[in-house]
């Protein structure tokens, strides 16, 4: 995996990719702003969401045990997986035990994180992604580039070509005369996948929330592929990060308001499915699966929890709002982050889940301008810039961290890798005036939050010999445009 600056440099020279990304992120960020303005209590919902998540992760042992108890009482089986390999082993074993050799999948970041599809393939099990964007990615032998719209980097022409050439290899081929209108492409996906849904015996999903009090699992989606997978197969296996638990059913009133508006900018996503174990009749009435397995995944989350500054990343509800406002993401694209979690959240989550030993993970904390836009839009108020600076300090200075539950001391990054990475990331923006202009504008709007000295070792080293310039109320470009009224 190349380090972020190298991967990003390649990406910014891909004109199609940049055009696709710019169109998509701008559309969605404008819509989101409108959806949020509709709720006069947005700031209070955001604060409540932050507080619920913080409370839960401080008492994570308690809530996980409660959840296990509730799921078990409702007829489900709970498994605990310390790392990716263990989770893959558990899921593979459960699928093989059903005697089936194919599974349908609901889009899930957790299963991507652990490389489940590859593990299943190695065991002779075909895993079919059923989210339209995931299908595009899977058929195109590609990687997802966005949390919410994984094929955001593909335009309609590219999608038509992928469907035409590849669908036949996986099942029902695309119609001969398939054109590139979104309606025709969606129809082709519907027909291709329906035959899989109707015969599927095993499904694998993630979950957006798990309610400790009741054992209820919650999946939000739009297309209905989630409902298909969660309803029709006989066996349902859900792989969920331990940070997705919330205390009570009532707490959903916060997140069901903030998540859809932050992610797809809708008042509500078209479909939300909630299920509690096997239901009141324990799956005997043919409404939903007759076997339910929940795999609780650690895979670096408890190590993240051990870091007092970094643990706030565990609040993330994967809405992707931070990606859509990030000037670096917009130009570099999701693939440059070299992880299933791209954008600002990926820049703080991946190096914590995986450690900062690899070059890509050591450079991720620099994949940002610290403009603060990600913090502003985050519905659970994760201070991403704060964690970025904290992680930079860790990379540059080394120090104690927790890896696989053990306190270890990491050495400072070799040479000047980190500073070089920072400069390259900065150049990325400086070479591209549009992004810089937007970054400056956000910076101006958030200037009252800026410290006078940068925190962290890297920051201190910088401000020791330099004064951090005050951020002007208006960027120079904006001032120029206003004063010189379009005479540029």
């Amino acid at each position, binding site marked *: 995996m190349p380090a972020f600056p190298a991967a990003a440099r390649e990406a910014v020279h891909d004109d199609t990719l940049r055009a696709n990304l710019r*169109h*998509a992120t701008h559309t969605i960020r404008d819509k989101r702003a409108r959806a949020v303005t509709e*709720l006069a*209590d947005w700031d*209070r919902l955001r*604060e*409540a969401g932050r507080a*619920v998540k913080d*409370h839960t992760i*401080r*008492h*994570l*042992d308690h*809530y*996980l045990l409660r959840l296990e108890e509730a799921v078990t009482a409702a007829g489900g089986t709970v498994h605990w997986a310390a790392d990716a390999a263990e989770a893959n082993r558990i899921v593979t074993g459960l699928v093989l035990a059903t005697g089936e050799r194919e599974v349908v999948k609901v889009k899930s970041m957790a299963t991507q994180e652990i490389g489940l599809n590859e593990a299943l393939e190695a065991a002779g099990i075909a895993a079919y992604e059923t*989210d*339209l*964007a995931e299908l*595009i990615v899977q058929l195109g032998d590609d990687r997802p580039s966005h949390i919410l*719209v994984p*094929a*955001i980097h593909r*335009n*309609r022409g590219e*999608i038509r070509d992928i469907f035409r050439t590849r669908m036949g290899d996986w099942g029902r081929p695309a119609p001969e005369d398939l054109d590139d209108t*979104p309606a025709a*492409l*969606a129809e082709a996906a*519907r027909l291709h996948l*329906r035959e899989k*849904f109707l015969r599927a015996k095993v499904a694998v999903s993630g979950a957006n929330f798990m*309610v400790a009090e*009741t054992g*209820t699992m919650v999946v939000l989606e739009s*297309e*209905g592929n989630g*409902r298909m997978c969660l309803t029709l197969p006989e066996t349902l296996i859900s792989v969920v990060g331990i940070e997705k638990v919330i*205390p*009570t059913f009532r707490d959903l*009133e*916060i997140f069901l*308001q903030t998540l859809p508006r932050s992610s797809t900018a809708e*008042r*509500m996503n*078209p*479909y*939300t*499915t*909630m299920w*509690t174990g096997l*239901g*009141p009749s324990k799956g005997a009435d*043919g*409404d939903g699966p007759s076997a339910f397995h929940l795999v*609780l995944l*650690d895979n670096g989350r408890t190590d993240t*929890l*051990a870091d007092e500054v970094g*643990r706030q990343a565990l609040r993330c509800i994967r809405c992707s709002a931070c990606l859509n406002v990030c000037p670096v993401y917009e130009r570099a694209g999701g693939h440059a982050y070299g992880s299933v979690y791209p954008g600002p959240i990926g820049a703080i989550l991946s190096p914590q889940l995986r450690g900062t030993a690899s070059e890509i993970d050591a450079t991720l904390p620099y994949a940002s301008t610290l403009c603060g836009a990600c913090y502003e839009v985050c519905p659970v108020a994760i201070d991403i810039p704060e964690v970025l600076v904290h992680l930079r300090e860790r990379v540059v200075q080394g120090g104690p961290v*927790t890896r696989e539950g053990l306190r270890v001391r990491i050495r400072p990054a070799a040479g000047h890798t980190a500073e070089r990475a920072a400069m390259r990331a900065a150049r990325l923006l400086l070479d591209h005036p549009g992004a810089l202009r937007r970054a400056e504008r956000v910076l101006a709007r958030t200037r009252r939050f800026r410290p006078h000295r940068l925190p962290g070792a890297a920051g201190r080293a910088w401000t020791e010999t330099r004064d951090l310039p005050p951020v002007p109320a208006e960027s120079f470009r904006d001032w120029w445009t206003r004063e010189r009224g379009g005479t540029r």
Partner: protein
Amino acid sequence: MSSKDRILARIRRAVPAGAVPPGAGPDAYADIPRDYLTVHGTRTAEERVDLLAANLAEYRAIVHRTDAEGLPQLLAHLLARRGAASVLVPPALPGAWLAATEATRVHDRADATAATPAALDRVDSVVTGCALAIAETGTIVLDGGPDQGRRRITLIPDHHICVIHVPGQVVDSIPQALPLLDPARPLTWISGPSATSDIELDRVEGVHGPRTLEVVLLTTGDAAQ
């Protein structure tokens, strides 16, 4: 040591406060600020129903209004307009609702025609009631009650007609809806028909769920939930 014990031990080392029960101490569950609104705006019952209708329509559901007398005719008309030859019927859908339609009734659970997903795929339409509806978000909630049937019957047919008693089954907001729902039941929240925005963020209605959602607001005058 089992992975469960290992994970729990790591958590307890990472957050020593975790040893304190969540009901006590500085970060008690009860201390979570909940000064957000339980409803956004004040509405009369009529305005609430109008808002529900507007929000449903914005997400491309087709909204109709009628009363008990007009319902059988309306349902018969909607099914005929679709050319529906067969209609799925939940176990306790009021018999009078489908009194006027010619379409063949397929009874959920009772009929072999509804036994497998592939068989359900050959049914044209489905008519159900609902548990409640949320005006502010344009959402219908199904809980598998006797007038709604199993989850799969509102999923596989391409045409779903959902009847909502108004104003009785309509609440303003999500915070008002949750206390009325039983999490032990299978809950399906529906806001408009199936849709995707995965292709250049252009919204397309209808991928895997029903491509047409018709909502009938049935005036009963009964305000009780």
